[in-house]
Each structure stands twice: as structure tokens, then as C-alpha cells.
């Protein structure tokens, strides 16, 4: 009677200590995935996803709190890469990609105050104080931070125009009634 009680008790004790040791020693500080995903983000802190910052959004994506498709500037491409990294299936079927937008400066109204210049996280707005500003489409993430800052309301967001180069075929639409 005594031998089993003691031996089982001892076994339990040793294993318990082992577990406690492992929990302390091999504890992972933060989730390394979060950092990796955060590095993939645009990091322009645009806030279009409704999160405080890109790294917060990355953390929530890793924890599955928000959909991977939430990053609008990242679009489908980013969602796909994150899904691959996290090893989760990505359901894109219902996801309509928003047409990417870029800022445009109305040259007639711009006073060259350079506030937008300072606000832009990616140096997409060029110009100098007292000079009319312009937007580099390739660098504009479409975050729209500059729009509200402009004192003369010279900045607006427009959809990136479709050209012969950027046009592409839509997914074939299934004929009504022919296919489920």
C-alpha cells in the first residue's frame, strides 16, 4: 500500500517540478510570429484597419482576432502572404478588394504649407515650403492622413485609374441557374 502511494507521489512531484522548470526556463517572450507579421505590414500606421498601429494589427491577426484581409493598403497580396506565414487557410471568396486609392493635390488651392509633407509616413508627397506639393503615386499607400491635415482642403483621395497595363480579367461569372 505504502510503496505505490510513495512512488506515484514521488513521480508526480518530480514531473511537477520538471514542468515548473520548463515553464520558467523555456518561456517564450512574446510571440515571434507577431514580430514577423509586423515586419510584413506596410508600417505606415495609417489606421485604416481600425487598429492603433500596424504592430497592434499584426498581433491581432496572429491571435485570430481580426481577419487577415483587414489591411486595406496591403490588400489581397499581403493577406495571402500572412496566411502562408501563419499556415492558415485564407478565404478570399467573399472579399472584395477595395480599389487602391492615392492622394492628389489640387495645384490651384495648395498653398505650400508643407504640413502634409511632414505627416506623410512614406515621403510620398514631395515639394518644399511655399512650393506646390505633388504626390508620388508609387509611394502613396492611400492612408489618407494628409487629407484632413490640409488647411485649404487641396488634397483628395482618388482611385488609381485603370490603364491597359493594369487592367485584368475578372473572375468568370457563373451563369444564373446553370451552376450552383
Amino acid at each position: 500500500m505504502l510503496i505505490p502511494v510513495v512512488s506515484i507521489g514521488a513521480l508526480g512531484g518530480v514531473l511537477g517540478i520538471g514542468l515548473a522548470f520548463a515553464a520558467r526556463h523555456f518561456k517564450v517572450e512574446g510571440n515571434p510570429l507577431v514580430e514577423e507579421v509586423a515586419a510584413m505590414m506596410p508600417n505606415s500606421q495609417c489606421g485604416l484597419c481600425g487598429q492603433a498601429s500596424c504592430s497592434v494589427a499584426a498581433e491581432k491577426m496572429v491571435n485570430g482576432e481580426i481577419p487577415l484581409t483587414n489591411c486595406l493598403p496591403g490588400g489581397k497580396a499581403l493577406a495571402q502572404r500572412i496566411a502562408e506565414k501563419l499556415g492558415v487557410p485564407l478565404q478570399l471568396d467573399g472579399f472584395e478588394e477595395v480599389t487602391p486609392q492615392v492622394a492628389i493635390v489640387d495645384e490651384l488651392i495648395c498653398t505650400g504649407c508643407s504640413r502634409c509633407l511632414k505627416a506623410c509616413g512614406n515621403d510620398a508627397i514631395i515639394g518644399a515650403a511655399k512650393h506646390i506639393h505633388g504626390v508620388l503615386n508609387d509611394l502613396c499607400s492611400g492612408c489618407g492622413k494628409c487629407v484632413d491635415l490640409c488647411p485649404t482642403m487641396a488634397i483628395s483621395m482618388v482611385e488609381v485609374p485603370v490603364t491597359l497595363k493594369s487592367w485584368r480579367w475578372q473572375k468568370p461569372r457563373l451563369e444564373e441557374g446553370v451552376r450552383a
Partner: protein
Amino acid sequence: MISSPHAPHARAVGSIGEIMHKVMLALVPATLFSFWTFGWPAFWLWLVTMLSAAGWEAVCIKLAGKNVATKLRDESALLTGWLLALSLPPWAPWWIGVVGSFIAIVLAKQVFGGLGQNPFNPAMVARVALLISFPVPMTQWVQALPLSPASVGFWQGLQITFGGLPVVDGVASASVLGGIKTELARIGHLPGLDGLFTAWQSGIGLRAGSLGESSALLILLGGLWLMRHHIIGWRTPVGMLAGVAVPAVFFWLLDSAHYASPLVHLLSGGLWLGAFFIATDPVSSPTTRTGQLIYGIGCGALTYIIRTWGGYPEGVAFAVLLMNAITPLLGRVTTPRIYGRTRDGNPLEVKP
């Protein structure tokens, strides 16, 4: 954005419905022949099974909220019903046909998502389910009647199929394979086949057996015609026939007292119908050419194994279902080499 149609702007003549039509047309000689040999009951059973198959299909399409008219147009349900009917005992009662087509259409096809989605051949699922559930009516064979004095008339035929009229003793008959199996168990070696099997009679189809599987000759004709029209390939049927013939020859040479002759194996049961019309069902068989050959050989070999060592006298249906199960795997391992790449998908070496 204007949506304009994508190339190609031309299309080969043909549709799924047309393929189904041609397969049915290829079945016509064998089917007519069976009406002649087995009389009116065979016709009624065939009709009931076909119509109920179309009916079940319509019910399922309706329940799924799709357009019945456009969906029924592919006529795949009719073909499934037809094939099922051909695999039933010719004098089976009407409800065998109705229950069978329910199993085939609803359980084996529509539940999986309809045309093109079923992993198993619907007609064979139904046949096996019926055989296991209703063993007595499913093994009630009759003699080929044109040679028998007991031919049944129109009304008697109706009564046999719909009225539950029992089969007269003089007409009832064992199938060749069934006879062999029973005798082998009883006396320990192969019985003499006199009166049970002659090659030429079996070849043209004058034998007891399922409704439409008896005439190897007419099925072969239909099958060849389908090959000519590129609807079926040669690999599956040839593989399946070889899969039966090769082991049959081997074991027969080894011990002809316990293993039936290759002729018996080749010319009895549902082998020819299975090889040309069942195993070639594109939905449940591999699409790759190599895969089709392996699949055919597998179907044949399993048929021989079940017939010889299994519990049932006939194994075509089981063999096809078993091979259906590994079809996706076969498809994957036999994916053809892509142009410009090695078999494992890497680009070929550049040799200037």
C-alpha cells in the same frame, strides 16, 4: 468596365448531354438484345429504373433550388438509371429499380454535390447496396428465354415486374459464376460445366445473368463505337479485361480443378459491361492516361480476386468501387510531366 467574352471564340461541337446520348446509343444493342432474351419483365424494369432515376434527380435539383429544366438537360441521371437497370436481375420487382435509383441518384451522387462530384460510381453503389440489402431478389436469375418454352407475354411480364408474380421454377436458373461458387463449396472442386457454360452462347449473351450484361459481343460493339468517337479510351477496358484474363490464365494453368478457365471468367458476369461502360465513367475514374491503365488493371484484378477467393460469386461492382476509392491517389501519382519540366516539377536543365 465592359465585360467582353474571353477567348476562345470558337467551340468544339459537343456537350455533356451529347456525350451521355452517345453512351446511351452505344448501350442500345445490348439492351434490345436483353429485352429479347429476358422478355417483357426486363423492359418494364429498365423503364421503371430509368424514369425513377430521372425523377429522383429532379426532386434533388428542386430541393437544391436550382433550375430543373437546365440541370436535367445533361441526361446523366437517365444514363445512371440505365446502367443500374442493366446490372439488375431481369425479373426483379419494380421496387428494386426505384430503391436502386434512389440510392444511385440521391445517396451516391446528389449528396456529394451532383454531377461530377461523386467519388463512387452511382450505379455500382446502388447495385452493391441492393445486393447486400435484398439478397434474394438480387440473385434471382432466369434463363435466357428465347431458348426456353416458358416465354412470357406482355401482361404476364407486367405482372412479374409489378405484381410480384413468383418466378416459375422451370425458368429460374443459376448464373455461371454463382453455380461454380456453390458447387466448389459443395464438392470441393470445379463442377463440370456441361449445360452451364458454352463459350459461344455466353459470348453472344444467351445465358442467365443481369439484365444487360450478358452479351459480350454487343457490349464490345458499343464500346468500340464509343472509342471511335473518343468518348472512352482504350486503357480502362483493355486494362480491366487483361486484369481478369492474366491471373485467370495463370491460376487455371496451375490448377484447373479449382480455378475456372479464363474463358469462363471473361465471358460471364458483368465484366464486359463493367469494362466498357462502368469503369470508364469519367467522374469516378482517373483522368490521366497512365492512371486509367492502372485503374483498369486494378478493377480487373480485384474482380478476379473477389470471384475466386471472395464471398460473392461476382466482383465487378465491388472491384470498381474499391478502385474508385483510390482514384484521387492514382490521379495524383500519375500526373503527366509538364512540358519544360522534370517529372517532379522542376525546370529542365538548360543545355545550350
